[in-house]
């Protein structure tokens, strides 16, 4: 986001506070309503996840706050002690579903976000290094990528989770290991095209240090396709995380994620408590969908040819 903001500043010319605010406004006005809506929903989801403890009536994972006699209440029912309304109903254990979804979103977002960022960093550097140094480095990195891609992502993640056991950091590690090859492969192919361009030759001719050449010249020009991969993989990470939790291989039961809520809800669907599946599922779909739309928009904004 920071680079698009500097673009705004430059468009306005002087970087004073007033004009940068105005140019940000101008910039937002030029975007389509649909993508703005998705951005708003995405930001809203993040904000809601962060502020969950303050905007929810109960901590659904604190047994002292959960009333078992309020189990399977339909949306809109007042709680047994009359303190609050179950906006989205309650689940089989009497937890407020609205609170549980926000807490689950918190877990899901932080895990998939951390994992996707780490995988982006590791995979991109590996891919750029493979493309730039060629030879043995290239061979080593890309064969590792091929081996990983030979297995289904979910299988790799499952194997890692069963080896290391459930837990927050193990899940992040599993997701990073499962996802870095996608970035590496994309980064390498984009970088190979860029390295063939004369500006990279010019940079070599000017004897710029290798790290500067890779980070300042190669990386920014290879980034747009990687951002698209990032958004896809962020959504994918959220989905894998949900799947693993659904399968009982995700985070521990004490800090459940959206996937675990969906898993629980799916057991209740035949009992007629459909809200226990629909609302967590809707939250996950909304998250993945808006991430994709925002990412696609970001890609176009970051293309300098579409800047003023």
């Amino acid at each position, binding site marked *: 986001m920071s680079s698009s903001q500097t673009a705004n500043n430059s468009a306005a010319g002087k970087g004073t506070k007033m004009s940068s605010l105005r140019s940000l406004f101008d910039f937002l006005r030029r975007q389509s309503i649909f993508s703005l809506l998705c951005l708003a929903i995405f930001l809203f989801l993040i904000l809601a996840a962060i502020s969950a403890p303050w905007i929810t009536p109960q901590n659904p994972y604190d047994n002292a706050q959960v009333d078992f006699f309020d189990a399977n209440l339909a949306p809109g029912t007042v709680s047994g002690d009359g303190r609050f309304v179950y906006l989205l109903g309650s689940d089989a254990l009497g937890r407020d579903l609205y609170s549980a979804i926000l807490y689950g979103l918190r877990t899901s977002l932080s895990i998939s976000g951390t994992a996707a960022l780490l995988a982006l960093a590791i995979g991109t550097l590996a891919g750029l290094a493979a493309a730039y140094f060629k030879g043995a480095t290239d061979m080593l990195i890309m064969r590792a990528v091929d081996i990983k891609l030979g297995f289904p992502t979910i299988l790799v993640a499952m194997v890692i989770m069963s080896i290391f056991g459930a837990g927050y950091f193990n899940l992040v590690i599993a997701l990073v290991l499962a996802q870095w090859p996608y970035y590496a492969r994309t980064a390498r192919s984009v970088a190979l095209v860029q390295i063939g361009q*004369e500006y990279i*030759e010019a940079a070599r001719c000017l*004897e*710029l240090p290798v790290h500067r050449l890779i980070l300042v*010249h190669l990386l920014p020009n290879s980034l747009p396709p990687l951002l698209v991969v990032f958004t896809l993989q962020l959504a994918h990470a959220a989905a894998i995380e949900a799947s693993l939790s659904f399968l009982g291989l995700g985070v521990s039961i004490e800090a459940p994620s959206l996937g675990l809520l969906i898993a629980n809800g799916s057991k209740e669907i035949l009992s007629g408590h459909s809200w226990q599946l629909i609302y967590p599922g809707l939250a996950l779909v909304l998250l993945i969908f808006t991430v994709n739309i925002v990412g696609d928009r970001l890609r176009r904004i970051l293309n300098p040819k579409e800047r003023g």
Partner: protein
Amino acid sequence: MSMPLLELCNISRIFTRNDGVFDKLARRLAIGRPLENLVAVDNVSMVVNRGETVGIVGESGCGKSTLGRVAVQLLAPTSGKVCFEGKDIATLPAEEARRARFKLQMVFQNPYTSLNPRRRVGETVIEAAVAHGLVAKADARDAAIEAMGRVGLKPDFIDRFPHALSGGQRQRVGIARALAVDPACVVFDEAVAALDVSIQAQILELLVELRQNSSFASVFISHDLNVVRYIADRVVILYLGRVVETASTATLFDNPHHPYSRALMAEAPQLKAQKKTFTPIVGELPSPLSPPSGCQFHPRCPHAMPRCKTDQPMLRQLGDRHFSACHLEVGQGEEGRIEEAGKRKVVQA
């Protein structure tokens, strides 16, 4: 004679097909494809003296650009050495070699790919000078404006991105970038070929002006004889990776010896002559994968003799700094030229 600034000694550059493991294995078992070598540059020697402009001319695919890239060390030669101020760069210690390479800069052919699209003009121009400590970070902006001024770019271009510039302006940025690091020698690789004719003229005038005001030597690679004639002190003519003739510009254009040079001169478009006919050189450029034996020009040469098919002619000195690789004696074959001219008149009539 003083020591030349840049000396290329017996440079060859061979490109080999990049085989995978299986191709290599198959060749071991004698069932694979044979290795194909493309000799892009074949045993070329040339010298660039201080402050001099050397033009390199030839058809496309004759190894001009490869030679230029070898000269600035973007490509390593397969054999031969590149000497900067008398020292072989390949044998210098790493830091000295880096400093020597830094003194050799290049201006690229395509102004649309030679600038980083995500960097502002000012950053592009001054980045290397700052990275190498030639300019303090605090003075970078002023230095960039000054470097841009030298090539006729207005200061308000400093914050623009390359996509907001025209081809000629981009090429000026490329020139400013190369000159900002105070190079000893600049290789211009088809630096005006991608530009409109009117812009070409502007850039050429700029180059002439820059050369008058500064001391850098330059190598000007072009397929356009008129451009080279305008700018170069000395000309090297390449054919299929070999030097066929080299002389000072005046000598070469007034008195070309090699039949290939003559053919090139004869067909260069001229305003005065109002030529209406065009006789291209017979035949096509042979494949560099399987070059002709002996003199590589013999299948297309109007004066080919039997020995041209077998003996490769070496460069012979014909006059002061005038060398030619042809078996013809001086003056021989001249009558052929007159005859041809006569024929042409008949055709016109």
